[in-house]
């Protein structure tokens, strides 16, 4: 019987012929934790009474969610991570290095065929690199650090066949928002998604990560893509030297195959307070906004900042809008400075904050006020997500956020796009 990408990766890592529904104990290649989850993982690791981590070279921790620390409580938790790094010899990316889901691929920790667990729900991002990567909790993370293994229930897969090429003005973010609207917030719970077709092949690796990143917003355990030459070149450029491509078998068994033609997709917007509350831009255009955010593990990469800058360059952000930009990593920040992207954004009126999660999760860096509307490139718009449950969050592409920041209301970016 043919196998999906997930079935093949979990078989290879468990030494067992695994199919959907089986429970396997698998070796993990990389383990990641961030500052919201690592402290609890360290606590659980202590409770396990294990002296040393299984393999320090496989473990990376990232201080990105509240970085730099906004208060002494967080500072103490950050120091717990720093001490753990010294004690166990793991990798630690401290404040200003960037968002965990940018650093793992960018610094060569992940590639084709790998099995990665991260104590962060958007760990599914690395599916764009043909890895099986999934979010776990802190205790699972501690168990993986202690034993090098974790148990998994092999998920069935939904395959998305995406035909056509995205039209000018519609981006990877619009595509994934559209798909989430179609299958709903729990449409893929306990399942994996495979995204395939012409629409995916045409995208850059940055853009593919935007799509894999949001697999969890349809409930999926992972969102995977097939490897191609573009990916191989990207991995080499980012210092990842293995090449172990995993393709699904032609006769792989899918739970279902969904086909969409994306060649006429309009820009999409997710309205408050759920990610699957998605409308085409024409239905929400004109909604006033007070804050705009460009960044996060979904859309804070170089390509995203460049798209925003292409719209904002030589123009001014609306006087009643605050535009906050958080580059996804130090490297992205440096590259965006070198090519003039950052100056275009800052001249237009953007406030640039430390590479990291920025205001995404409401710990600092731009908490909205009561009754305000925010348009953001992030992946979640839950009530209270950005630290104020009386604010309203709309999710969109960097282009839509940039165009909206100029107009002071949700705005179709297509008039600005020349391609």
């Amino acid at each position: 019987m043919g196998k999906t990408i997930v079935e093949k990766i979990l078989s290879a890592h468990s030494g067992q012929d695994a199919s959907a529904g089986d429970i396997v104990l698998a070796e993990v290649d990389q383990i990641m934790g961030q500052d919201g989850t690592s402290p609890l993982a360290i606590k659980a690791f202590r409770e396990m009474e294990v002296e040393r981590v299984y393999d320090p070279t496989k473990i990376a921790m990232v201080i990105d969610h509240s970085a730099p620390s906004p208060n002494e409580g967080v500072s103490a938790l950050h120091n717990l991570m720093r001490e753990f790094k010294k004690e166990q010899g793991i990798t630690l990316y401290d404040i200003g290095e960037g968002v965990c889901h940018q650093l793992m691929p960018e610094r060569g920790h992940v590639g084709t065929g790998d099995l990665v667990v991260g104590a962060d729900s958007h760990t599914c991002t690395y599916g764009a690199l043909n890895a099986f990567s999934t979010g776990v909790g802190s205790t699972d993370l501690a168990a993986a650090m202690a034993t090098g293994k974790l148990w998994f229930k092999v998920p069935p897969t939904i395959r998305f066949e995406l035909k056509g090429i995205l039209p000018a003005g519609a981006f990877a973010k619009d595509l994934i928002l559209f798909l989430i609207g179609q299958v709903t917030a729990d449409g893929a719970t306990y399942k994996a998604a495979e995204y395939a077709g012409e629409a995916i092949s045409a995208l850059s690796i940055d853009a593919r990560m935007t799509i894999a990143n949001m697999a969890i917003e349809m409930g999926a355990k992972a969102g995977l893509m097939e490897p191609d030459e573009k990916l191989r070149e990207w991995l080499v450029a980012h210092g990842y030297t293995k090449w172990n491509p995993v393709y699904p078998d032609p006769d792989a068994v899918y739970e279902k195959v969904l086909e969409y033609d994306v060649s006429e997709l309009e820009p999409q917007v997710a309205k408050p307070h759920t990610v699957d509350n998605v409308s085409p831009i024409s239905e929400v255009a004109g909604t006033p906004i007070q804050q705009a955010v460009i960044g996060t593990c979904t859309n804070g990469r170089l390509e995203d900042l460049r798209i925003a800058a292409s719209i904002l360059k030589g123009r001014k952000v609306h006087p009643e809008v605050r535009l906050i930009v958080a580059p996804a990593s130090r490297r992205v920040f440096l590259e965006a400075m070198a090519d003039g992207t950052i100056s275009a954004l800052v001249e237009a009126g953007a406030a640039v904050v430390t590479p990291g999660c920025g205001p995404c999760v409401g710990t600092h860096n731009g908490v909205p006020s009561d009754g305000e509307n925010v348009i953001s490139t992030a992946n979640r718009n839950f009530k209270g997500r950005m630290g104020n449950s009386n604010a309203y969050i709309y999710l969109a592409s960097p282009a839509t956020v940039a165009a909206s920041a100029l107009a002071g209301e949700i705005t179709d970016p297509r008039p600005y796009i020349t391609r």
Partner: protein
Amino acid sequence: MILRGRAHRFGDDVNTDYIISGKYKFKTLDMKELAMHVMEDLDPDFYNKVRPGDFIVAGRNFGCGSSREQAPLAIKYADIAAVLASSFARIFYRNAINTGLPVVEVDTSRIEDGDELEVDLSKGKVVNITRDEEITAKPLPSVMIKILNDGGLANHIKKNKGFALED
């Protein structure tokens, strides 16, 4: 183990930001303190209303959103005995078992706020005493029963010096 308590009813898609807001989760490892804010955005008075041993009862996709283990822990430290929902988000479900919070996947459509319930975890049976109805729950995978019986994953690893999931 048989648990008995009152139902606190919530709807579908209760996400981890509602269970415990990100603005609290990063501040502390003191779960008692986090527990005081549990479900605050959906019901500001929730923590004060709960009596030890009560249940959270919800619709579909309970616990969707982030992987924060503070979510099941805050519920557990608010003295909630178990969460009953029609379905759970995957990471939350795992985290709950790993931290020793019982979760029961069961058709909750006929359970109302304030109903008196009796939950038999090992048999997977829920009795709605108020309505005199019995509902059968979906059983936990055997791997999870092992972990729950060991008092959570940290204890499981400590006791067995690693994973011991084979039958």
